[in-house]
């Protein structure tokens, strides 16, 4: 009786494990130090710390929002792999776009992203941040930080750092579980799906956004 129940449980459990297998695999890859190992992890974490401190020094200084944004933009420009994010955000439409469209889109995306980040950061004051742990993932290193602002609950922000270009670059930020590039891609691909899958429509919309 007991053995039959154990066997039944085992069968159910292994069937469950089989069904879960494919979904579990990425989670395992997350925890492993894949390419590069500990040196890359500490390099990425140092990079986040350095860039964060640079930004915070500007943010917490007295000065107008416009002045701050002007100082922040070049730092973002250098620290972020804008082209990689641009390509990611277009999703499957990247391959559909003509080389000219790709080029035009990349340039527009660049101003959209740098404007939006420096615009947002320029509004902040009295920011503090603490470094958390860093974990290697197959597309880079994820560096966790906690950002504190007056009158706001502490926000957990993870930075995905890629070494693909040789030097560490930010390819994504994940604020309280929401990924910047994933949200942006969902926005763009949905817009395209509702505009006859026409990449030109997206380019025109981005143009309007920048001028507007």
């Amino acid at each position, binding site marked *: 009786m007991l053995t039959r129940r154990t066997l039944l449980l085992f069968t159910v459990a292994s069937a469950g494990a089989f069904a879960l297998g494919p979904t579990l695999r990425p989670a395992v890859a997350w925890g492993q130090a894949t390419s590069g190992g500990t040196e890359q992890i500490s390099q990425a974490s140092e990079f986040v*710390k350095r860039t*964060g*401190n640079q930004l*915070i020094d500007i943010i917490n200084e007295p000065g107008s929002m416009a002045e701050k944004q002007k100082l922040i933009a070049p730092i973002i420009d250098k620290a972020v792999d804008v082209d990689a994010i641009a390509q990611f955000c277009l999703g*499957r439409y990247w391959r559909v776009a003509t080389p000219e469209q790709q080029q035009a889109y990349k340039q527009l995306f660049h101003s*959209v992203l740098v404007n*939006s980040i420096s615009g*947002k950061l320029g509004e902040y004051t009295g920011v*503090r*941040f*603490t*470094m*958390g*742990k860093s974990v290697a993932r197959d597309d880079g290193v994820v560096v966790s*930080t906690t950002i504190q602002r007056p*009158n706001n*609950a502490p926000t957990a922000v993870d930075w995905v750092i890629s070494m693909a270009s040789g030097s560490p670059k930010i390819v994504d930020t994940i604020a*309280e*579980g*929401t*990924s910047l590039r*994933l*949200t942006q891609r*969902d*926005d*763009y*691909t*949905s*817009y395209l*799906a*509702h505009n006859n899958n026409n990449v030109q429509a*997206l380019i025109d*919309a*981005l143009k309007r*956004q920048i001028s507007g």
Partner: protein
Amino acid sequence: MRRRLPLAACRLAGLVVGLGWAGLGLAACTSQSGSPSGIANAAGAADFEQNNDPLEPSNRVVYAVNDALDTAVLAPLARGYRAVVPAPVRNGVHNILSNLSNPVVLSNDIMEAKPRRAGDTFMRMLINSTVGIGGIMDVASKWGYPAHESDFGITLALWGVDSGPFLYLPVLGPSNPRDAAGFGADIALDPFTYVSGGAWTIFGYTRYGVTAVDTRERLLGEISSIKKTALDPYATFRSLYDQHRAQVIDTVRHDNRSTPPSWYPQPAPATGEPSDAH
């Protein structure tokens, strides 16, 4: 949208709407189990699968209605609240509301079988209701018992219930059958639901009204920047909601801290302590 907007004009109506929509969603879910019609290519079908939004056309209608309501009523109220009431008072109001929600949070912590989280919530109730003067001040956070999210939608997820398709609910906003059912269950779990009559009824409505305005006020900046920068705000809110819920559920699932509190002697952690950067 960081958090589900917990606004209910009426508790019972909320419950009925929540459960009604949950039923509708489940019905639609089973009828949509085949391959989606009207999508010509494989890539489009992949997008369809990923968005998990077979009810998108009707969801967008509800979104448009909610958005109009928000623009006409809730957002102006939230802006007025911010303009008239000073920040320290608003924080006090927020803390009181958060303290009032603790019984529901505690019930869910327990049903999620997370003793340390339940302990945190219990200590928050105890400390903030007394030292924090009826919840006005969040002393517990400073004493090492920070607030966390917990609701019956999360509990159901930990029990293995699938979210079902994305749903945009009237008034309540982004959700899914699981979280909508969770919303209804949370009302049933709330001890304040069962005290009514006279001042208590007024208290109940006031609490829901103030919660709506408080939540909206906290999201004023974020929502207006999404509406300004997103090309498809509906898709952006959907993406943010799904990602945020997945992350919260993941956090709860992996929060297996032991029960002894921080002041009790514990073995040193194996990994290095996080260092202060600034």
